[in-house]
């Protein structure tokens, strides 16, 4: 049951994106995206109700535990609310009407990448999921194609890509710290690292942790205080995305 809901919650927005891209009609795209977001909320709530201990599948690449399920509920709720808001908001942009299916396709893909992140069990794949959210959301930020929108998109992708590369460095150092304990080749799952953690070298682990904290922190907007203008610009361009957790 958990596997089915997990597949549904990822497939629904991807299917919506495919429908948006294939139909090329604004109304169809609106409703496909809205329907997908409602399916996501239902699936996320079902996951919270059914999940007990961590459930792993797809060769341990996916893990659904209570924390992941609650994160999915938050993400799916924001996705659903943003989808409802988007219908009215995007209709106001009369000149963008023919590009609306693109917007909803990107929007649904963004939701899919956001949903993939919390259920990834391998830290390397987790980093890739977070990186994909950046790429898709950049085009959402720059969707209006005005000078300010493109400026916000450019600054956003540069700042976030630089930040997330720090997280990658931290991830590699974590893998290295683990390899000194476990052996050169292992699957970098949360469980493996948790078991190896007490025997890892403290200096190396601290450095890796700080890099990961700063790296993912840049992505999540922890450093928003240092860069209010850019955050302001991005949220000004796309009010509803600033509420997305990431």
């Amino acid at each position, binding site marked *: 049951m958990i596997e089915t809901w997990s597949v549904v919650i990822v497939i629904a927005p991807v299917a919506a994106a495919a429908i948006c891209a294939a139909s090329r009609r604004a109304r169809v795209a609106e409703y496909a995206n809205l329907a997908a977001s409602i399916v996501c909320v239902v699936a996320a709530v079902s996951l919270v109700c059914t999940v007990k201990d961590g459930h792993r599948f797809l060769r341990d690449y996916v893990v659904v535990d209570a924390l992941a399920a609650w994160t999915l509920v938050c993400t799916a709720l924001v996705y659903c609310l943003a989808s409802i808001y988007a219908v009215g908001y995007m209709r106001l942009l009369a000149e963008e009407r023919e590009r609306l299916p693109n917007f909803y396709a990107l929007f649904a893909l963004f939701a899919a990448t956001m949903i993939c992140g919390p259920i990834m069990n391998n830290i390397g794949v987790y980093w890739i999921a977070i990186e994909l959210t950046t790429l898709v959301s950049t085009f959402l930020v720059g969707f209006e194609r005005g000078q300010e929108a493109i400026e916000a998109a450019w600054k956003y*992708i540069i700042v976030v890509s630089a930040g997330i590369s720090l997280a990658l460095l931290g991830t590699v150092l974590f893998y290295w710290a683990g390899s000194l304990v476990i052996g050169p080749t292992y699957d970098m799952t949360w469980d493996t690292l948790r078991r190896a953690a007490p025997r890892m070298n403290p200096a190396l682990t601290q450095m890796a942790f700080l890099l990961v904290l700063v790296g993912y922190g840049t992505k999540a907007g922890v450093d928003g205080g240092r860069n209010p*203008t850019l955050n302001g610009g991005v949220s000004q361009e796309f009010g509803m995305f600033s509420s997305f957790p990431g």
Partner: protein
Amino acid sequence: MLLAHLSPLAASLFSLLAIGSLLLAFVMLGSRWLKDYLLAFMAESWLIAALSGAVGYYGNYRELYLIALLTAFFRGLVLPYLIWRIIIRLEVERELHVILQPSSSIVLGALLVLFAFVVSNHLGNALGLGGTVVVLALTVMLSMKLIGFLMLAVRHEAISQVLGLLILENGIFLGSQILVPGMPMLIELVLLFDLLVIVVSFGVLVRYLVAHVGSTSSRELRRLVG
């Protein structure tokens, strides 16, 4: 662990390739011409591919041969080709307004390398691996990271910033080849393709910059400044 039992020849070869890559990062710091950046990046990628092959040979990691080939092909040919196409389309040949002269950038870069060495040496000693190729690999990895950030900070042209980001990635990739050669191949492959997607996205954004802002210099991106 591979690094603890390296033959002197292998250690020297790894060191040579790593230092060569670091020097090429300095070539990028010391030039204003975009094509120089690109050539240096290309050569750096080839050196890293050679390093993957060497680690694969001496450490007996067969899959690293494939990674070396893919690195040479994607990082050494496809990415530079994509960026070269953007440069041709932009008709921008050099950095016009520099915040920091190339000579000052090199001096600053040298200081950053020194800082990276101090951190790496401390880590190497904490791990009981002081004086081995580990310290050098960590130094090069952190230095390229810092030099990449320096390039992002002091260069205005969009292409310079993209190449700055690619140096960050190259630094991590280089370090991971020496420090964690046993990293699962799937992760390395996905990282490689991820990089390709990033560069294509940057290409699209640069086109938007030209069309809607009229310039690819971040000096012109001043509307969202507080």
